[in-house]
């Protein structure tokens, strides 16, 4: 009986001892792995910070302005580009007739010049006082092949005048 008791305690002590060490080494290796990962995260965060600063440097207004000047030539937005309501948007101009286009009979070209007017009318709010037919017939009656707009502003002015 005494020998059995001793054996039991001996077994218990060695088991607990082994278990303790096993847990300890397990924890140590886990801690090592955790620290490795944390170091990797910190390194990554530092890299992100450096990239952020580099991005800020590469996109500073001065550089963007210089690149715009070289590749895009965009200018500041001017007031007349800022239209506030739909009615401010001008109608699309009737397709200008080329100067060297063959002179055709007045009645033979409705499909060409009437189409843009119709497509423009879809974005225009309903304006019953300006029927399409009137605009179309006016365009047909006066083809004006010589007055070809040279700039967008001129084109807009022409359309505004024809309305």
């Amino acid at each position, binding site marked *: 009986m005494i020998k059995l008791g001793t054996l039991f305690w001996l077994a218990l002590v060695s088991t607990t001892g082994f278990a303790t060490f096993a847990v300890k080494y397990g924890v*140590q290796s886990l*801690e*090592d792995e*955790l*620290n490795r990962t*944390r*170091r990797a*995260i*910190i390194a990554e*965060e*530092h*890299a992100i*910070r*450096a990239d*952020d*600063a*580099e*991005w*800020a*440097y590469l*996109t*500073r*207004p*001065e550089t963007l*302005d210089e690149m715009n000047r070289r590749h895009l030539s965009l200018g*500041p*937005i*001017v*007031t007349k580009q*800022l239209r*506030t309501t739909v009615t401010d948007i001008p109608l699309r101009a009737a397709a200008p007739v080329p100067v060297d286009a063959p002179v055709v009979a007045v009645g033979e070209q409705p499909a060409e010049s009437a189409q843009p007017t119709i497509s423009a009318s879809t974005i225009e709010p309903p304006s019953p006082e300006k029927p399409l037919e009137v605009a179309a017939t006016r365009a047909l009656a006066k083809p004006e092949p010589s007055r070809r707009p040279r700039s967008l502003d001129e084109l807009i002015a022409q359309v505004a005048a024809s309305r």
Partner: protein
Amino acid sequence: MIPTQRFDDNPCRPRHFKPPPCTAITPDGPAKQALEACRTRLRVTAGLFALVFAAVALRIVEIGAVGGGTTESQIARFRMVTEPVPSHADIVDRNGNVLAATLDSPSLYANPKQITDAAQATDKLVRVFPTLGAAEVHAKLTSGKSFVWIRRHLTPAEQFDVNQLGIPGLDFEHEERRVYPDGGLTSHVVGYTGIDNAGFAGVERALGDVLRGRREPLQLSLDLRLQYILREELQRVVDDFTAKGGAGLIMDVNTGEILAMESLPDFDPNHPTAVDPGHPAIPLADRMFNRITLGVYELGSIFKIFTVAMALDSGTATVTSTYDASHPIRIGRFTISDYHGKHRVLSVPEILMYSSNIGAARMAVAAGAQTQREFLARLGLLKTPKIEVSEVAAPHYPAKWREVNVMTIAFGHGISVTPLSFASAAAALVNGGILRQATLVKLPAGYAPQGQQVISAKTSEQMRRLLRLVVEHGTGTMAAAPGYVVGGKTGTADKISGRHYAERKLLSSFVGVFPINNPKYLILTMVDEPHPNKQSHGYATAGWTVAPATSRIIERIAPLLGVQPVDESSPEVQRTLMVESLQGKRIEAY
């Protein structure tokens, strides 16, 4: 004593096995004492052991069940790696663009004892760093020491290149460095740092304690895009008029937030002491000088807005009041005359429109010295402004407020204030009369700090109408930005040199507000000692220098700020801006 005989249960047992006729010995004398001492010692020892084991057991219970003790290991290897807090937090603008960042900046060093082929290593290093002298590097690598610096503060790209070389014996030491990606653009606001990232100027210095040990970036009210536009336009004025310097700020009149603040010339905070290659002649002190917060100036005619507001608010004048401006005023050794003289009786709107010194002086005298002083104090013009940069200056004003001071202060001479104080006070005149402290730190969206009502809302509305008049018909017509309803006031002051005013040295400034019918943003621009040029027809006054710049700035920034252009001639806009006393009258050009 009779010996007691125990009862023998087995009479057949051999005799020597028989229990002796014995009894408990109860020793007497010294023996008894020795025995007792032994017992006591045993008990004490056992008690001590029990105590220690109990302590161990209790500790185990505490660690296991109660959660006492630390999880931190005493052994360095098992200690948690924690992220090093950067010594200073980043600074970003209101849209999150980085203005200042703390970066890990590796420095390259070599251990010459480990370098096998010094000549080859030198050759490779010089190819990565062309600015390093080959002879110098070779001397370092063959010095036989165990530590020599090759180059401090490398960029990540340079570090990558050095790693690519694969030279044994080279290593990096990690150091921290403050970098300013935008260079000189925000130098006067953000400031710069010295060794150990200690702030030496600007926000870096004033808010050093806030930045230190903080993780989240500090968000300023600045908008980098606006800052760039302001700086570019100011630089253009300075270059066009060969001026000594320029300054400007853009402020949200309803919150006091500063969206842009620039003082020219400026410096590169990454290399604060380096000479500007473009302008090597400009001294460093001049480039580091923040004209907005540290400079105090006699701002001249733009000060008349305060005179008019004071007269209207205190009730000593109404919009229809008139003052005789037909003759110059002589007081003591001074003569007050008009630059754009009309030589007749002028009404209050006309005094502002034509910028009449005589009219403003008479208006101030009618209100009185006490009223004027109190009014300026209420607007915060007689105390040092508070702002989140370390460079601020106190205003200069006469200790004794005599009549001549009243007259000169009425048109902005004899009192020197910082442009910052001026902007805060001017914002209060147009925003409904509420004075708010200017700030460089971004406020939460939709939050306006509690201000101080300094003038009535009615006076503020009258001021808006009058300021519009100046841009529509007065001295500030070139500041107009069609669609954005600009209102403002020009100011051209003679600079003091020594004890006298210098005729040819001007300080031209313009304060503009847009849209003036519903004020949102204030722009203050000034240019120091502009010289006339051909385009300006020989003028270097505010109307020809900074007023056109203000117009250009507004046209560029308004779309960014989301301000909708309106038709200025529409009846709704006209109604909010008309000045009743001038209705039906012919307004003559100044």
